[in-house]
Structure formats: C-alpha cells, structure tokens
C-alpha cells in the first residue's frame, strides 16, 4: 500500500489548446459548451477528419535567442508558457529557490517529430536540410531541454514519454523529488502538436473518427486528434497558501496489449486505487472525474464500466475531449488544468459531443454542464502500452 501523500501546492498553472490561449479562454468555452474542433486542414494531404488545432502557431517563431529550438511543438509550448503570468511565476520561483532546485519534468508523446518529418519531406541530397541541422530538435527530449534552456534552469530535467499518460505522470515524478528534498519546486506539464506521425498513425489503426469525436456516445466512431500545451508549478504547500492542491496520484500497467486497453480496465482501476490511497480518500469523496474518454470504442467501454461500478451517482464525470480533441501526451496536463478550472468555476464541464449515451455509462455522467461545489476531483489519463495514470486534486480549503 502506498503512503498517504503530503499535498503539494499547484502555485501556478496554464493551458493552451483548440479552446484558446490561457485559462480564461478555456473557462469561457467550457461555460458555453463551445468546442474547438475544426475540419482537418493540417499537412500536405489532409485526412478526412476533425482536429483540435491551436490557431496561429505557425506565425509565431521563437525569439532569436531560442531559435535553435524553433519548431511547431516548442512554439506551442512557448505560447502556453506566456499565458496566465506563468513565465513570471517560473522566474519568481527561480529567484526564490535557485536554478538548480527546480526540476523540469515534462510529458510528450512525439515532441518535435514534426520537424524531423519536415526534414524528410525536403531532404537535401539525402541529408537533413541545413536549416534543420539542429540535433536538439530530433529527440524526444526537445521540449524539456527547450523549457530548461528558456528559463535557465539546471536542476533535474526529464522527459516522460508514455504516450497519452505522459503529462499526468510528471506530477508523480515531481512529488517524489520534492518529498525526498532533491528539489524545492517543479515545472510539470507537457506539449504535443499536430504532426503527420499521429494523424496518419492513428488513422492506420482505424482509430480516427471522420466526424467530431463523441466520447461515451453509443454511436462513437473514434478519436479526434488535437494539440495542446499545459504547465504547472508544484511546490510545498507552505509556499502558496491559497493554491489548489495535488493530493494524490496513481500509476499502473495493464500488462495486456500494446494498443488496446485491458478488457476489465485492470490497470486503470489499479491506478485509480493507488491515487485514492495516496490521497487518503474514498470513491464517495470524489466530486468530479475528468475522464480519459477518447471516444475510441474500447477506451470508453472500459472506462464507463469502471466509473459505473466504483463511484456513487454524486460523483460527476465527463470527458472534455469533445472540446479539445485528444491531445495525446499533453492530455494529462490539459485535463488537469480543466479539472482545476472546474473547481475554480464551480461547474462540471459537459461531456461534449455525445447525444446518445452508451448504455454502459452509469448515472455519474454529466452530459451537460452542471453547477457544482467541487472540493475533490480526479483526472484519468491512459496510454498505449497499457500505461495508466490518475491524478487527485483538491481545493485550497481542503488542506488539513
């Protein structure tokens, strides 16, 4: 059994997705149940599907001093880092703790592979073209090394790349390092941007829907891929008295299949139980769950059954992928931010996109937005390879 976790303060957080830049854009879209999916216009030969695209990324190169890292993924990260006063909060933390006492722990599934793809599309006599002769881009570590360099941080710097659970798991990495005194604060989060690898890759697995995704709908037809960036600063609660809290996390493996979830949701349930145990809470304490809810046949089937058999009807649950698309390695932190916003705004987001509920769904599902006092909430993130994570959050008032 895991130990009870000492809560950590989430002293700053931000998100940028198809819903817009920063928290207020997300709060407005969620309040209005207004999604951000659009017909796919990405890549040279766009597939017939819908995507969650962040407007304007291609028009905003990185500043000259960071030009080595310039690519779509790092541009998206840079846009997100400048919302909600986040960059200033990082600099203040650096001032407070010192550059070596802050870790950069970021999740991504494909990092800046879009830049590598581009290089292959316009090879120069079989070689990477000169303008992309930048080794820092052609590695999964591109995002984390960029963020560490941008803020001149030289503490631990780690990329977690466990597909769609990546930027949820980094909250766990941060908690361990802070608890053991290796660091005083962590920049956690992640970024994934649209690229051919994921659009054509998920298409090859026949998981991409031709219409906007409909999580937990009986007639759902697959995922819509989106891009997003989100970041949070975690530190000890004494450092930020009014901040919302990370109170628990769970991690577990399905041990079942590379691209299909365990049929009974075993890994998802183990991750959930791990998170509840670390947080010291029972299912009945949970007011809201932001579900993984990708709108793939299997994920939603397994997750609906898990929620239906585990939680009382007073626990409200929804997937917000109908708003943003499935943002893959960024989904963990994007949906953590949406969960924290739901607490702040006192509103359970709608399960946008579904019109005919899958009969497997229990009474917990919030098909439409609901006003609610959300004191404790969970966010689920499950990835390829049977990699599962669950995060538990609480309002500042919940601290003991």
């Amino acid at each position, binding site marked *: 059994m895991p130990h009870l976790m000492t809560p950590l303060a989430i002293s700053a957080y931000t998100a940028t997705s198809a819903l817009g830049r920063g928290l207020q854009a997300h709060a407005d879209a969620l309040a209005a149940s207004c999604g951000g999916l659009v017909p796919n216009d990405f890549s040279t030969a766009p597939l017939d599907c819908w995507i969650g695209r962040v407007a304007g990324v291609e028009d905003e190169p990185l500043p000259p001093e960071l030009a080595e890292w310039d690519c779509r993924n790092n541009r998206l990260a840079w846009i997100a880092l400048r919302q909600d006063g986040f960059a200033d909060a990082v600099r203040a933390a650096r001032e407070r703790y010192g550059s070596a006492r802050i870790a950069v722990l970021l999740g991504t599934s494909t990092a800046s592979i879009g830049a590598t793809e581009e290089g292959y599309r316009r090879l120069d006599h079989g070689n990477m073209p000169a303008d992309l002769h930048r080794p820092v881009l052609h590695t999964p570590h591109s995002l984390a090394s960029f963020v560490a360099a941008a803020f001149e941080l030289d503490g631990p710097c780690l990329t977690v790349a466990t597909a769609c659970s990546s930027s949820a798991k980094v909250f766990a990495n941060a908690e361990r390092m802070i608890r*053991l005194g290796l660091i005083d604060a962590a920049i956690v989060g992640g970024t994934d941007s649209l690229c051919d690898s994921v659009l054509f890759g998920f*298409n090859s697995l026949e998981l991409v829907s031709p219409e906007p995704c409909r999580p937990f709908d009986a007639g759902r037809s697959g995922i819509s891929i989106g891009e997003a960036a989100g970041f949070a600063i975690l530190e000890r609660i004494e450092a930020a008295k009014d901040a919302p809290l990370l109170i628990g996390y769970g991690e577990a493996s399905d041990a079942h299949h590379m691209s299909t979830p365990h049929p009974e949701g075993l890994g998802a349930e183990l991750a959930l139980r791990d998170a509840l145990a670390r947080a010291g809470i029972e299912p009945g304490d949970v007011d809201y769950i932001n579900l993984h809810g990708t709108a793939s046949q299997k994920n939603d089937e397994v997750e609906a059954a898990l929620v239906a058999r585990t939680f009382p009807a007073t626990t409200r649950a929804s997937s917000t992928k109908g708003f943003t698309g499935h943002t893959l390695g960024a989904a963990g932190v994007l949906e953590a931010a949406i969960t924290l916003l739901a607490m702040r705004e006192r509103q359970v987001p709608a399960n946008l996109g579904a019109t005919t509920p899958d009969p497997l769904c229990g009474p917990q599902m919030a098909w439409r937005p609901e006003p609610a006092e959300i004191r404790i909430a969970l966010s689920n993130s499950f990835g390829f390879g049977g990699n599962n994570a669950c995060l538990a959050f609480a309002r500042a008032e919940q601290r003991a």
Partner: protein
Amino acid sequence: MSPALSVWIGGIGLWAPGASDWHAFRDIAAAGAAPGESARPLAEVLPPNERRRAPESVLLAAAVAGQAVRMSGRDAATLPCVFASAHGDQVITDYMCETLATAPRELSPTKFHNSVHNAPAGYWTIATGCHAASSAVSGGEEAFGAGLLEAATLAVADDRDVLLASYDIAGTGPLGSMTTTTGPFAVALVLSPRAEGAAVRLDITPERGNSGSDPMGDAWLDGLSASNPSARAVPLMRALALMKPAALRLPAARGLDLHIDIGVAA
C-alpha cells in the same frame, strides 16, 4: 554531507557489441578479456513470436532487463520499471518519417504502435505480467543519468525495488546523422532501497555542472562510451565490474551531474 539517495544493486544486465551480457562485460572490463563476437540480444522474457517480430529497441531493452531481474531473484511482475532512452527506436522513426514523406497513407499500424517511446515498457510489462507503475523517459544525451536519478528516486520514495533499463540503438538515415548514435548499447539495474544481502551500494547526490568524463584508458571501453547515449553508463559499469569503492560523476541533465560513491561490502 549525507547523500541524497542511497540504493543497493540487486541485479545487473548489459548488452554491448562484443559483450552480450554482464558477465562478458565484467570479464573484459575487470579481467582483460577480449571482446567477443556480437550476438543478437537474447530477450528470453518475450514469447517466441514476439521475439521474432519485436523491434531492435524492444529486444535490446528486454534482454538487459531480463538479465538484471534474473540476477536479482526478484519477481518481474511486481517491480516498477523505468525504461530510459535518448532516442527510442531510431530505425522505426526513420521508417515513419520516410513513409510519411512519400506515402503517408501506407504507414504500417504495427510500426506506428511500436514507435511510441514506451514500446519496450509496454512489451516488458505484457510479457512479465507486471501491473506496477512503468515509465519511459528521455533526457537527451544525458538519458542514462536522468533515468538513474528517476529510478533511484522512485525506489527510495516508495520504498520498493525498481528496475531501470537504459537502451539506445544505432541511428540510421537522415535522422541518424542528427543523433550520432553509432552502435547499440543497453544496461539494466535492479535498484533496492535496502541492503538485503546486496554487495554494492550507490550513494547518489546531484551536483551542479557537467564535469565531462575522463577517458578510461581502454580503447574498447572509451569507444563504447562515446558510441551511444545509454553507454554513458560505461564508466559506472566498469567501476561495478572492478568491485572496489570508487567515486565518479555522470551527467543527468545539461548543467547537472550525479556524484556517485560506490560502496562495496567487505
């Protein structure tokens, strides 16, 4: 000053061109044996059909992880695992980028799901029935040190034995010229927060700066260490092979080293 993290080594696995397991490496590094022929990594943990089809990165990672767990006598099904790699499977990434540039709709679904950085962690947990936490990490050229820091942190924080495997395969195609990984290498350690009869302890403390590594004075070891980001573990593995107390530094990030004191039970 007390070290930030102390972990005991319960098991070791290694595969290098010319040393297909830890014992072969130890004989070269500590007893002056000549490197042998290169044998395909033997991933006995994987079912035979998976072993035939598995990408090179998965074979390499599963082979060393299997060696380390076998030596440790632990049950793989209960061990949380951290798989570290600077670049993941570069052969698959090269295939993906080339196919996407020419015939994107012909992308192989199997290659796609094998392209995820956590493919070795996925195959490993499936093959061993492991439901514990599994992770796949990168730290660029410092991936081994970053992975070691993460695995040791997990072992101490949750008071559990943890499997670390760090692997990289040779680069290929236009991508290969960017990653400068010229040969395959993988290493695995079972790390324990308690002694429990283990002979070797690592006291690990993060320290600012990158000191760079001194040549080991052995052409094979130095060549190996320079060939592959995961092979930045080679100075540590050589010290473990010598079974003598030692101190060394390994990079864990840009601007961050791990100072490691190796303690050996008398």
